[in-house]
């Protein structure tokens, strides 16, 4: 289904709730560690276990993350917010309630720009609030019993709620991707979806354009962008078919089954959503002083939208390139450092190298841009040698591979060392190239004859021979020119 379009007379309405696990060392209300992958229950302390007499003490780091997020989306960071108990019973929730925020969340409003196709769309945010995660229940392996691991219990989460501004699965995915990039950019969440650090619920309904909102169904726990797209597409089709067949949509919580590609209703009791929220008497209101907000604002990195605009204005990049180069803070930092070393005149070739050559290599080896064996300064210096005609772009690719493989040392001048050591400096002396071309023409009389008979292909073959004779060190345009004037 195409984005922003009405499907056979129906309009799709989607809102997304995201749980971002905050990148703190300790839990939101206790001093237990939050590291992923520990043995079961070794990071669950008395507070996380809800043993009698324990009290929660709020983590400053988690609050700081919420402030950073609020500032990054242009929201109001509430001067006063309140923690509330969300009451329900489940074995991986030892207290019998989850500490969350209800009537007075820490972040109010805000917005996020998303890119769908060629156009930009602003998605409004409702709110973001702090809460604790629950533990994990393992239903397999134990005859008639469930195993409970409370390491995750009390891990800080920021639940980010969008307005129902999304109109297609493509827009929903663009929103989730933009949000995912942003929380990583500002360093509040590692964004690891396999480990559950970033999970989305999608509220989906359909309506006749301009009509009242339809009844929504909530697709829970979407932990990949691909599943989100598939789940919403299936759900939208299902709702439209149900309505067109004269049926009604019942409000429900559904799960997506990646194997069947279908969403199905969770069996849940009628009173499952009566959480009886009330302010948690164990916690006082959270008051965030305005100077704390301003200090945090001063420490925020330049945000993706601002950086993108600056790349366009300062470096003359296209919107497309600037968007790709601000997909993450790592790639943006790498690119800027490379341009700094290469010179602003090389901004465009730098962009191509980072987006194509470097990105391909980094993706293939599954590493981060910051960990690439070719540093930004090394790449910049290499491209400066292309810009000043010391080497051709083809030779630059070979040198890039050599630096990647560890040649030339770790200094910024690795490219220069390799050029000197291997004699890769481009031949620009016309006389020297002409001599080589004369040799090539003498040795390939048959090709010359073919060219003179009108076969343009033979010319390209001769260029190839000439480049080979220069071991790739001549400027191809120059070879082309000299060859044509000699044959002409």
């Amino acid at each position: 289904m195409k984005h922003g379009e009405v499907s056979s007379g129906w309009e799709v309405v989607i809102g997304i709730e995201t749980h971002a696990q905050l990148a703190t060392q300790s839990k939101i209300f206790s001093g237990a560690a939050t590291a992923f992958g520990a043995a079961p229950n070794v990071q669950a302390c008395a507070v996380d276990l809800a043993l009698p007499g324990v009290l929660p003490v709020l983590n400053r780091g988690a609050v700081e993350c919420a402030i950073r997020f609020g500032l990054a989306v242009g929201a109001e960071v509430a001067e006063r917010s309140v923690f509330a108990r969300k009451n329900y019973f489940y074995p991986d929730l030892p207290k019998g309630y989850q500490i969350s925020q209800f009537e007075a969340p820490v972040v109010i409003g805000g917005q996020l720009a998303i890119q769908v196709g060629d156009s930009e769309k602003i998605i409004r945010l409702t709110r973001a609030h702090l809460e604790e995660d629950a533990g994990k229940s393992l239903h397999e392996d134990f005859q008639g019993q469930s195993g409970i691991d409370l390491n995750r219990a009390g891990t800080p989460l920021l639940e980010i709620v969008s307005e129902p501004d999304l109109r297609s699965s493509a827009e929903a995915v663009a929103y989730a991707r933009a949000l995912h990039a942003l929380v990583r950019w500002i360093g509040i969440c590692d964004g690891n979806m396999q480990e559950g650090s970033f999970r989305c619920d999608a509220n989906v309904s359909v309506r006749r354009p301009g009509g009242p909102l339809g009844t929504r169904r909530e697709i829970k726990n979407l932990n990949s962008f691909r599943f989100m797209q598939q789940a919403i597409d299936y759900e939208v089709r299902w709702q439209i078919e149900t309505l067109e067949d004269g049926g009604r949509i019942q409000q429900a919580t559904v799960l997506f089954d990646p194997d069947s590609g279908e969403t199905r209703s969770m069996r849940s009791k009628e009173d499952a959503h009566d959480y009886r929220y009330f302010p948690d008497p164990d916690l006082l209101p959270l008051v965030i002083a305005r100077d704390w907000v301003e200090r945090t604002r001063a420490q925020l990195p330049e945000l993706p939208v601002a950086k993108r605009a600056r790349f366009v204005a300062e470096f003359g990049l296209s919107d497309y390139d600037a968007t790709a180069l601000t997909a993450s803070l790592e790639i943006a930092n790498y690119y800027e450092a490379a341009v700094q070393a290469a010179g602003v005149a090389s901004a465009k070739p730098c962009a191509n190298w980072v987006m194509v050559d470097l990105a391909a290599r980094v993706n293939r080896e599954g590493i981060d841009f910051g960990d690439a064996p070719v540093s930004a300064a090394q790449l910049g210096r290499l491209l400066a040698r292309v810009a000043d005609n010391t080497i051709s772009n083809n030779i630059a690719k070979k040198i890039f591979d050599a630096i990647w493989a560890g040649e030339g040392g770790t200094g910024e001048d690795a490219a220069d060392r390799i050029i000197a050591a291997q004699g890769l400096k481009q031949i620009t002396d016309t006389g020297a190239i002409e001599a080589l071309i004369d040799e090539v023409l003498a040795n390939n009389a048959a090709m010359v004859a073919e060219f003179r008979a009108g076969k343009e292909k033979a010319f390209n073959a001769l260029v190839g021979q000439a480049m080979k004779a220069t071991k790739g060190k001549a400027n191809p345009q120059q070879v082309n020119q000299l060859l044509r004037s000699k044959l002409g």
Partner: protein
Amino acid sequence: MSLTLEQVRRVAQLARIDISDAEADTALGELNGIFSLIEAMQAADTAGVAPMAHALDIAQRLRDDRVSESDQRAAFQAVAPETADGLYLVPKVIE
């Protein structure tokens, strides 16, 4: 405002409290007594007064983001009814 017996049963069910019919009747009377107190308080003019979220009019103190708890699983699990492979075992729950 007063509660119905039906509402008392529902609240008990939500709180997983198993109450008999007699207890429900008693609870209804007691809860309605509390509601009448609240009703009396509602008579006070609170226009322009921000609701408090806590009886104390002070702000939450914060702790630094530092790991201060070490692994005490063995001690905690010594008093658990049943454990296996480091997990707490409970009657099977699947929604």
